[in-house]
């Protein structure tokens, strides 16, 4: 199994643990990730604010490279990158105007994209290609008794919903069940917004949103929150002190990339999963995983 | 109106579904190009190849056959006969040097006025793009070319 791999900008800074643990996990599962050559920023949400076509063109440069580089699907780890790239495909298919303009812009820099490169979220690849059974067979340390709150984040299945439901996604639940965890399947905040980029522009509002998610996880007795997006992970983890200050709470909940926790279950060394880079200590989780 | 080419189209409409669908397009005041003249038959299964040849011979540039959706036929399965016959008719016309895009089969129910209007609009534009049939003015070579050149790109339009 082989995929082209798009790490996204966060993988080079705040979200580097996501990238590191993804590579380790996929290697363990025998999945080859070939990093997309000279990829650029997907454009994220900010770019849509300048000119819609710019954002599609910038995203499409990556897809054009992917088309040239190989026949494999393009695997993406960040929710926002995933949605931006998948949305570009969707709009190029739906709107002849978008298609024409984007293809024109690519042509101006000597690139070509036909609009057909499948963009896949890493969870989609794990659940639907690798398969839960195969993953379950490779478990070295079952996550028995670990209460996992699966936090999907907004752009995991919204707005496209191609591999999971837009209102009640299930893939991450099933994934951690396969690893033996005690999944909090009814985690009601699984899709609530963490505030995203608002953390820098309107901290009060973002802190309020994080509070709702953290409280929901704590009420259910979560041992760890797992995330599938660098921005979500950073907001939920990094701003717990701010939430505590604003709401008089005492949250100290470990937050991990889902690839990190999965890596532990498959017996990968915590160092290889960059677990030491987490802001809230994950020691209690590490200690709780049965040997 | 501009002096662009106005194709002349004949549409065989089954009485129970498509004719009523066309009526509904009218009742709902949907607008579509005036190029197609409907001819009513009881069932799309009544339309036989000679009707289509006749239409082309009389100067039509395109022929539409519209019937009930599969399973909805007033006569149980008349439209399946049409569907079965259609690819053969198309093939024959192709051999005669006709672009396959000049003949079209569609399922239009009595509730699908919007679909009827859309089909006529699309079909008019497609045949307009093909240009006049000129059945009698082309050389045999030209006719063969027309059938050949267009067969690839229109093949996918055959209803399953």
């Amino acid at each position, binding site marked *: 199994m082989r995929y082209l791999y798009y790490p996204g900008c966060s993988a080079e800074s705040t979200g580097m643990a996501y990238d590191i643990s993804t590579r380790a996990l996929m290697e363990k599962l025998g999945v080859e990730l070939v990093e997309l050559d000279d990829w650029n920023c997907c454009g994220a949400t900010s770019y849509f604010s300048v000119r819609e*076509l710019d954002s599609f063109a910038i995203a499409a*440069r990556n897809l054009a490279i992917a088309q040239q580089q190989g026949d494999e699907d393009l695997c993406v780890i960040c929710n926002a990158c995933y949605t931006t790239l998948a949305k570009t495909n969707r709009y190029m298919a739906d709107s002849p105007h978008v298609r024409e303009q984007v293809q024109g812009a690519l042509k101006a820099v000597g690139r070509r994209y036909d609009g057909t490169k499948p963009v896949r979220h890493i969870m989609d690849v794990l659940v639907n290609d690798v398969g839960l059974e195969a993953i379950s067979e490779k478990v070295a340390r079952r996550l028995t008794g670990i209460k996992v709150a699966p936090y999907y984040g*907004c752009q995991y299945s919204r707005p496209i919903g191609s591999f999971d439901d837009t209102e009640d996604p299930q893939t991450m639940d099933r994934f951690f069940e396969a690893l033996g965890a005690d999944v909090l399947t009814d985690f009601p905040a699984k899709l609530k917004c963490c505030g995203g980029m*608002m953390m820098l522009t309107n901290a009060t509002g973002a802190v309020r*949103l994080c509070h709702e998610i953290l409280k929901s996880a704590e009420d259910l007795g979560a041992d760890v929150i797992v995330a599938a997006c660098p921005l979500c992970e950073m907001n939920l983890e990094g701003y717990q002190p701010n939430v505590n200050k604003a709401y008089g709470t005492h949250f100290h909940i470990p937050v991990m990339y889902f690839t990190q926790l999965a890596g532990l279950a498959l017996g990968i060394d915590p160092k290889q999963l960059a677990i030491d880079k987490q802001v809230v200590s994950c020691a209690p989780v590490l200690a709780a995983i049965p040997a | 109106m501009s002096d662009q080419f106005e194709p002349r189209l004949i549409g065989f409409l089954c009485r129970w579904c498509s004719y009523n669908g066309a009526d509904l397009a009218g009742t709902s005041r949907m607008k579509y190009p005036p190029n197609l003249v409907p001819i009513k038959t009881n069932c799309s299964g009544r339309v036989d190849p000679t009707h289509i040849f006749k239409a082309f011979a009389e100067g039509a540039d395109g022929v539409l056959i519209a019937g009930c959706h599969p399973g909805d036929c007033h006569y149980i399965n008349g439209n399946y006969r049409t569907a079965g016959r259609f690819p053969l008719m198309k093939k024959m016309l192709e051999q005669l040097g006709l672009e396959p895009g000049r003949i079209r089969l569609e399922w239009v129910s009595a509730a699908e006025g919007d679909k009827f209007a859309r089909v006529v609009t699309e079909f008019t534009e497609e045949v307009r793009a093909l240009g006049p049939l000129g059945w009698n003015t082309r050389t045999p070579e030209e006719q063969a070319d027309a059938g050949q050149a267009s067969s690839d790109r229109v093949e996918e339009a055959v209803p399953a």
Partner: protein
Amino acid sequence: MPAGEKIKICQQCGTCTGSCPTSSMMDYGPREVIAAFRAGMIDKVVKSNTIWLCTSCYSCTVRCPAGIKITDLMYELKRLGIKYDLLPKDTRNPAMTRYFIDNVLKYGRNHEVGLMARFMLAKDWSMPFNFAGLGIKLFTSGRLPLLPKQIRGKEEIAKMTAYLDAQEAKLQ
């Protein structure tokens, strides 16, 4: 905007505003934005804080019974705001957007440290102190590299943008 005409069939049901995680902080909820749009009073909403509080969570878009792509509409309004310089005074978001884009134009990728630093220095002197605790932790764990990565094809970004500028000019 693809499928933009859908706003004509908005029935003002409020599902979008009710679903929006940040609507309570907005001057106008998404429903009111659509109402204003239809009433020809876009300037009113563009100047408000509303569109800059949209986090692109797409809750409204997936729930809208009229199939309106409300998140895309918010982007459209952000674009109008930037283009005609109709920005609310107390919102930091437009600046953030600007810095982000400069980043991508310059390096081809987003350099988070640079982004945060420029943003904080320019917009809010107090912020580094609020976030100092986290920043230090991120630095010490190596999660905030100081030097930006650059891509080889970074000039392609500017070229594509220039191409689209020219196309837009041609259309107008």
